[in-house]
């Protein structure tokens, strides 16, 4: 595949890997956070850590939008889905995410009409085909996905569709990064910035990370060589004592982002005063809701939503994992009480989550795996 295969070349990876190793100061350990769950996925899927020296570790951040949805919101969505004549639509990612009383899959098994869609526009199509049903789209995702939801609402408004609404759970990555930077026990040397979020917001919003917190950030693509190059660029910055925002993913990310996308988000949505992130707690101005002028498309206003907060389970240490203070295996319940089949915490929920990724792909010591796969 064009723009994919050429960024997966093993020989180039070996070359980059030696350059990275050459930048390591003896005795020093480096920790970089990849903010985005998509990066976590790439890192495990391709076995990218095999190219990094032991002294560089990658910390998997909070950028998995289904993982950070608090349990109470999942319960709210299920409460909507279970009302009469409702068809709930959702991305596949959301189906297994547990709330306080089960997941979409469980609710579907109990009789609710919950359907998977690839695009919010597909939900709109279901609404057109089922005029006697009320079709709700479970809107999740970060800045990357919010414009698509907003465009869909605009479309519904222009068609004057009366049976379509969205349950808005869009979250914003910038306040979450800030919350992590503000945490007192944080030890990070820099960030691998979320490339696809940046197609929308551009690179400017990260400037405070370098300016106010003195941490370099490299906005990165999603192929394994992209991430390896980003680690290299971060190491160069650290070695030279610089901290700047760089754009490794310029083939897709314009520095200024996508103004049209930002404009449609602003037209349809506004900031919530605060929103709860699973594992990170309440973060102010970190999520979006539907503006009053589009209230006809806002499931939160149309339906009776319980809105009961469900506290994260006590044993769960996702917050520490998300901040990079603990490694997944250091959590007390990792792999025993908390597994991908029966997740307790956010990081185990989706395959993007730091713990699930480690459980599925990284569970065995790298030495043992390397030994076994040697040809």
């Amino acid at each position, binding site marked *: *595949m*064009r*723009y*994919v295969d*050429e*960024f997966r*070349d093993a*020989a*180039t990876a*070996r*070359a*980059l890997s*030696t*350059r990275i190793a050459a930048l390591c100061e003896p005795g020093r350990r480096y920790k970089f956070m990849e903010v*985005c*769950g*998509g990066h976590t996925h790439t890192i495990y899927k391709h076995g990218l850590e095999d190219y990094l020296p032991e002294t560089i570790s990658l910390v998997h951040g909070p*950028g*998995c*939008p289904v993982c950070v949805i608090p349990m109470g919101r999942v319960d709210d969505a299920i409460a909507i889905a279970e009302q009469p004549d409702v068809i709930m639509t959702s*991305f596949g990612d959301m189906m297994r995410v547990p709330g306080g009383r089960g997941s979409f899959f469980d609710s579907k098994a109990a009789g609710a009409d919950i359907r998977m869609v*690839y*695009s*919010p*526009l*597909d939900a709109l199509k279901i609404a057109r085909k089922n005029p006697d049903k009320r079709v709700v789209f479970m809107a999740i*995702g*970060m800045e*990357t*996905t919010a*414009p*698509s939801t907003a*465009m869909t609402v605009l479309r519904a408004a222009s068609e004057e569709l009366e049976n379509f609404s969205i349950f808005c759970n869009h979250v914003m990555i910038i306040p979450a990064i800030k919350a992590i930077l503000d945490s007192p026990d944080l030890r990070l040397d820099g960030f691998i910035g*979320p*490339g*696809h*979020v940046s*197609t*929308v917001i551009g690179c400017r919003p990260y400037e405070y990370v370098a300016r106010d917190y003195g941490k370099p950030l490299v906005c990165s693509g*999603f192929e394994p*060589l992209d991430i390896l*190059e980003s680690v290299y660029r971060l190491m160069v910055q650290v070695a030279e004592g610089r901290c700047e925002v760089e754009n*490794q993913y*310029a*083939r*897709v*990310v*314009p520095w200024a982002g*996508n*103004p*049209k*996308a930002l404009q*449609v988000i602003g037209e349809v949505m506004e900031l919530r005063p605060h929103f709860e992130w699973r594992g990170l707690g309440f973060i102010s101005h970190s999520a979006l809701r539907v503006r009053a002028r589009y209230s006809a498309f806002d499931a939160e206003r149309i339906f009776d939503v319980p809105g009961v907060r469900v506290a994260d389970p006590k044993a769960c240490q996702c917050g520490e994992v998300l901040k990079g203070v603990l490694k997944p295996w250091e959590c007390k319940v990792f792999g025993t009480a908390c597994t991908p089949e029966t997740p307790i915490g956010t990081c185990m929920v989706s395959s*993007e989550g730091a713990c699930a990724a480690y459980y599925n792909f990284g569970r065995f010591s790298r030495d043992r795996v390397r030994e076994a796969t040697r040809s």
Partner: protein
Amino acid sequence: MCLGIPGEVVELMAGHEDLAMVSVEGVQRAVNIGLLRDEGVTDLRPGDWVLIHVGFALSKIDEAEAKASLDWLTGVGDAYTDELRALAASDIT
């Protein structure tokens, strides 16, 4: 967090001003290009590549930037191969 896949614009769909048929290795889907359209105008043409996310084109791929990025990576790879070769040569002497 956000799956985005590069695809090639095959055609702008007549009668649906916001839709383009996009191909990923021969797999086709109509993709909404409204986010790459300003004041109703788009400079997208068949043969252009876009990044697709949840059925929307989020950005047009910049071929020059992609080439620059690849050139740099290839340069790193070539330099490494040369070093290895030099190392192998010095071993013999």
